[in-house]
């Protein structure tokens, strides 16, 4: 669908783009570029799974960027539509030049509002009329990503807010044996809070008390999504995958 679907850097993008007259199609629209930035950000969050603990500042900034894009796309109403076109998994192959995104909003206001976006809008409205249930799906797909997104931090650090070292270890081992995805919740359900207030204190093992849930969760199979042709499910697929990888780290 993209005339030039290859990743193009901003450095060499400008001259090419402006030189091509016939290539109106060759200029990725703001919407597509925004999608590309979203995809890039999601890939970056996935790549946070490293041997060394990921840089929290970087992760927070990328997550905030993802949230910004999601919010804007939600307001545009394009959140749903974009994902009908997506093939599911974010991949670097689909990244397009995000040249327009580099410009400030002032520049954008002056220039180039997006013909393709206008088309999207019309189609979307058309679909809306036809299929009321689509709206519900849209709403939930918007909600769920946000929850999953935020669940990233929750799951990564839930153990900090909950208690007993020995008890949690037992639960982890229990969960490992069960190997059921739902056990993730069981893992965090019953522990008490008092212990983790001590994580600002300093002796021995109390401080390094983020549990090895990365280990335990690695053995979980990824949450299965059944109806993969459903729009919101494909979207959920992406974010589930990310949550899983982030929690692993």
């Amino acid at each position, binding site marked *: 669908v993209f005339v030039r679907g290859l990743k193009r850097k901003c450095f060499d993008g400008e001259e090419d783009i402006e030189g091509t007259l016939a290539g109106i199609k060759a200029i990725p629209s703001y919407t597509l570029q925004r999608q590309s930035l979203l995809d890039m950000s999601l890939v*970056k969050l996935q790549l946070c799974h490293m041997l060394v603990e990921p840089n929290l*500042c970087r992760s927070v*900034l990328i997550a905030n960027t993802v949230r910004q894009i999601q919010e804007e796309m939600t307001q545009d109403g394009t959140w749903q539509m974009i994902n009908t076109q997506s093939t599911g998994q974010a991949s670097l192959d689909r990244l397009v030049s995000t040249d327009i995104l*580099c410009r400030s909003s002032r520049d954008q206001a002056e220039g180039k509002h997006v013909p393709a976006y206008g088309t999207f809008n019309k189609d979307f409205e058309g679909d809306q009329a036809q299929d009321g249930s689509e709206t519900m799906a849209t709403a939930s797909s918007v909600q769920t990503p946000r929850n999953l997104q935020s669940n990233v*931090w929750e799951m990564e650090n839930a153990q900090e807010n909950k208690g007993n070292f020995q008890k949690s270890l037992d639960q982890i081992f229990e969960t490992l044996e069960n190997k059921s995805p739902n056990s993730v919740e069981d893992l965090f359900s019953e522990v008490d809070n008092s212990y983790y207030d001590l*994580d*600002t204190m300093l002796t021995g093992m109390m*401080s*390094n008390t983020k549990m090895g849930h990365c280990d335990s969760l690695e053995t979980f199979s990824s949450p299965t999504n059944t109806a993969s042709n459903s729009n919101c499910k494909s979207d959920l697929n992406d974010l589930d995958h990310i949550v899983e990888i982030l929690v692993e780290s």
Partner: protein
Amino acid sequence: FLAGFGSLMQDVLWCFSQVKGTIDTGVTESDIISTVEFNHTGELLATGDKGGRVVIFQREQESKNQPHRRGEYNVYSTFQSHEPEFDYLKSLEIEEKINKIRWLPQQNAAYFLLSTNDKTVKLWKVSERDKRPEGYNLKDEDGRLRDPSMITVLRVPVLRPMDLMVEATPRRVFANAHTYHINSISVNSDYETYMSADDLRINLWNFEITNQSFNIVDIKPANMEELTEVITAAEFHPHHCNTFVYSSSKGTIRLCDMRTAALCDRHAKFFEEPEDPSNRSFFSEIISSISDVKFSHSGRYIMTRDYLTVKVWDLNMENRPIETYQVHDYLRSKLCSLYENDCIFDKFECVWNGSDSVIMTGSYNNFFRMFDRNTKRDVTLEASRENSKPRAILKPRKVCVGGKRRKDEISVDSLDFSKKILHTAWHPSENIIAVAATNNLYIFQDKVN
């Protein structure tokens, strides 16, 4: 007007003095310098690297025979400060990389410094030994024990001169207090306490006590899903031991007074510049994230570094900085590429000169920039082997933004983003600067007349 050394940019010509490190084209990761710091007199210059080592250089005494040498820095001590560790609970490595070194003011013959990696702060004592005792009764000169029954005469050991030996010993280890990665340490002006800051918390330590610290700032939300902001840097006020500042990833600075409450979650002052709505983009927040904050020597100002600018704030004015300097604004149109290759997350530091009249920070392509606050002049210089002839004057560099490129200029697209100057240091009283370029340490001085 003449306000002392370094205040008029056109009068200061920077010359190459020394470079430390190998010339090999392949850089060993562990040799990458991660922090640079002069001590309070400028006699010593410490570097830390990714391999956990600390190298201390000492300035040689100036000799009347060689006035042009102006006191070169030579290796004084090298030691392994931190080792790689493995956190078994999280199945993650703890890097040995030295994030920061801070010197304590000298109070006796020994030198003390704090060095930290992501998790553990250590107090090191660096001392000289130039005498050793000789003439023990119970052991001979080689150290072998003598048979007591063979001793017929007793003698008193005497101290005899020996070749100078510099020893570094860890005197304190401050561990297990940080769940997140330590980004800053700062010695208090009382010289009895210091603080260590990680992404979400700041702890106050007493130098004598290693098994306890006070948590003075905690921005960790009760619900981690609400986390949107982290602490990026922190520093004590140079004179007021109750005051410190910390910066955030949202471009804000908070000044706190420890006298008001045990937990300084409420700031006494909040510094933030209103966003320019016409400049807003998806990258606005990322480039506003502050990577370094430094008090001026006078204690009246703070300087902050974000991705594209350096700002000077007056402590008495919270709503905007009094000065803003563009470091490399030509990168503004490249932010998406810099986001893609992660360069947008590079953390540049900034430093004041001794009189607070000039500020310096690094950039890409081994460029670093200086801004004279009085004359408003700025200069771009480069740390490179090509300019490394002794006492060679550094030629100002210029980045060409568009259109025609002049002969000596370099175009934005030709910049090498792998050559970044993140760490620099300025001698406390003289025009001597240390610039870390990956695995090399450059020392520049102003031209001696």
